[in-house]
């Protein structure tokens, strides 16, 4: 059984919570005591049906305000797959949550209220999904019950969306007309929309091909921790522990160790009490090498061919998360794979208006939820790939030196 991670996005009241509640409920992932609690809360709030949206309302602050304000994670499984949902809110001011939820997702579900059609928020969400490199997008056109399950209404939205999407070069986009409230095309096929034949949402989630979502081409192994038992039979053991970030490593492979560009050969790939012949993303393993070279956390073991870029001047798309605006030439801690360096933003090349996709050239600062193309300079080199090629070696975060807060996320160009 495989693991699939997806994120959901939509504007307030598009029906996101209802949809998730429905997926969980129809997959029998809701327990009786949870359902009882929701029933009680629904009656208290004067709702005439069980409000499935309440299932996913997490913290008290949110229950009080009746809105979702942070990323919450949900789980369900079908006989085919296990699913992890990153449930993120749709408010403009919470772009950072959507970016967070999108960072590890294989699939983005974008909700559109059929009565409102494609709106600015839809553009924004699709743009972010694409920026964060989510390989598959499913557009759910919701509340079909409110327009008599009209095929024309659905086709119109599909057309509008596609017209916008051509500007973004999306790989895999699908459309489903649904009613999250009534359940049409969520888990059960709709009897009201026999004209739609591409499968229910759950069906698509179960079958979408995600095997090629990892990079299996360029071998990348950021060293996370050095294992040194220093005792008994393993006295001289020196293992480099980490998680494969790209490519396939095999025992006997010639490798290069960055930043010193020393070469060696993989003597063994170890997991608990055994050696394996090859390792690939996202496995956690330890390598031992034939040569005794000095390697520590933050170094990277890579394949001989197609090495990553090594540099101190980086162009990246940056999403600013903090209420405190970004100032040019301010110093940050930059975290990239297992490496940590100091960095400065030297230039804002352009900001993106995510509603129109226009590039705005006059920016010197960034405020919360801004997305911009910037030039970064680091005090020491980092070893990276373009984000489009590898989501692990292409991503970074900026941390405030004084408050330790995570200020921004970056996708390297």
């Amino acid at each position, binding site marked *: 059984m*495989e*693991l699939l991670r997806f994120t959901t996005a939509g504007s307030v009241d598009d029906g996101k919570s209802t949809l998730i509640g429905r997926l969980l409920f129809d997959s029998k992932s809701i*327990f009786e005591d949870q359902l009882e609690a929701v029933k009680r809360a629904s009656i208290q709030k004067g709702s005439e049906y069980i409000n499935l949206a309440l299932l996913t*309302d997490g913290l008290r602050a949110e229950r009080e305000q009746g809105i979702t304000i942070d990323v919450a*994670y949900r789980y369900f499984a079908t006989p085919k797959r296990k699913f992890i949902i990153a449930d993120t809110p749709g408010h403009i001011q919470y772009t950072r949550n959507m970016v*967070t939820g999108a960072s590890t997702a294989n699939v983005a579900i974008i909700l559109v209220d059929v009565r409102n059609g494609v709106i600015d928020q839809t553009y924004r969400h699709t743009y972010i999904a694409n920026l964060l490199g989510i390989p598959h997008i499913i557009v759910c056109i919701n509340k079909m019950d409110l327009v008599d399950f009209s095929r024309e209404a659905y086709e119109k939205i599909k057309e509008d969306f596609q017209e916008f999407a051509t500007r973004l070069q999306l790989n895999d986009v699908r459309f489903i007309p649904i009613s999250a409230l009534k359940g049409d095309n969520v888990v059960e096929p709709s009897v009201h929309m026999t004209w739609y034949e591409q499968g229910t949402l759950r069906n698509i989630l179960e079958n979408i091909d995600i095997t090629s979502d990892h990079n299996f081409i360029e071998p990348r192994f950021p060293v996370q921790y050095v294992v040194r038992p220093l005792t008994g039979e393993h006295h001289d053991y020196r293992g480099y*522990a980490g998680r494969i970030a790209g490519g396939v490593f095999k025992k006997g492979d010639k490798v290069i160790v960055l930043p010193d560009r020393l070469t060696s050969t993989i003597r063994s790939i170890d997991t608990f009490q055994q050696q394996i012949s090859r390792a690939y993303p996202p496995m956690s393993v330890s390598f031992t090498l034939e040569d005794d070279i000095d390697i520590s956390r933050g170094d990277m073991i890579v394949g001989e061919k197609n090495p990553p870029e090594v540099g101190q001047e980086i162009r990246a798309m940056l999403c600013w998360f903090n209420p405190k605006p970004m100032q040019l030439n301010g110093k940050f801690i930059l975290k990239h794979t297992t490496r940590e360096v100091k960095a400065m933003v030297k230039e804002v090349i352009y900001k993106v208006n995510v509603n129109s996709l226009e590039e705005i050239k006059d920016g010197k600062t960034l405020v919360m939820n801004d997305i911009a193309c910037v030039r970064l300079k680091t005090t020491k080199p980092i070893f990276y790939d373009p984000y489009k090629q590898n989501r692990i070696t292409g991503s970074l975060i900026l*941390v405030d030196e004084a408050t*330790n807060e995570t200020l921004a996320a970056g996708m390297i160009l």
Partner: protein
Amino acid sequence: MVMEGLSLSHLRELESESIYVIREVAAQFERPCLLFSGGKDSIVLTHLAKKGFWPAKIPFPLLHIDTGHNFIETIEYRDNLVKELGVQLLVGSVQQSIDQGRVVEETGYNASRNVLQTVTLLDTIETCKFDAAMGGARRDEEKARAKERFFSHRDEFGQWDPKNQRPELWNIFNGKKKMGEHFRVFPISNWTEMDVWQYILLENIPMPSLYFTHQREVFNRDGVWLAAAPFMKLRPGEKVEVRTVRCRTIGDISCTGLTLSTADSLEDIIAETAATRVTERGSRFDDKRSEAAMEDRKKEGYF
């Protein structure tokens, strides 16, 4: 480009993610510890740590917050495990916190030391100067937990501010903190109860006998079966009887609800888990206090 055979099962992917998180803790913090309760989640967490550092020993101590109201089986299991792994065990004692006047023992029929644990935990973290405490909490357990980060920041009072959490992207974890602050880290955040049992079966991890069916003296309170023990005061009308039960979660005796069950193998437990219609937490007494019970306790610094 699709390559043959290059995929991991969901259990192996979860395992790999958790080992990655545990290794990040060992790398980013100076004095981490692993909170060991004797329940299945902390047993799996310890197993993952063992795998992640092999052939070296686990490079941090286990910390048990002992309410003094434990099942004997839990303590035996704990002591054997520690011996086998060759790791250090530290015990924070709630009884000692009571004796020192740090907390006041609850009274009445529903008295429990569960809430008191928070003070003992925070005190122990402070005296031992731990800067990170790993726990086996999972996001599917409870709705307040669904929003937890892997790396969860705590201020110098040990408190959690759910509205001001650091964004956590990809697998880049920000463990930076000021003096006196610490982190709670939850490496098995993404596991469900079912994943945990399937993994225990896959890895053949020995489990405390409490999880399997056995005869025990119990009594029924508000629909929940609780174990009889000297410190468990019976209300009028409650009577002790012998039943065939097992634990679905293991905590301190006062809040561990027992399930009537004849499951005596991991396969049986998995079948039971698949069929069950109430949450694990539904059988815990501590969460029944109010809708937001868990969230409130977590803000204070609970596990």
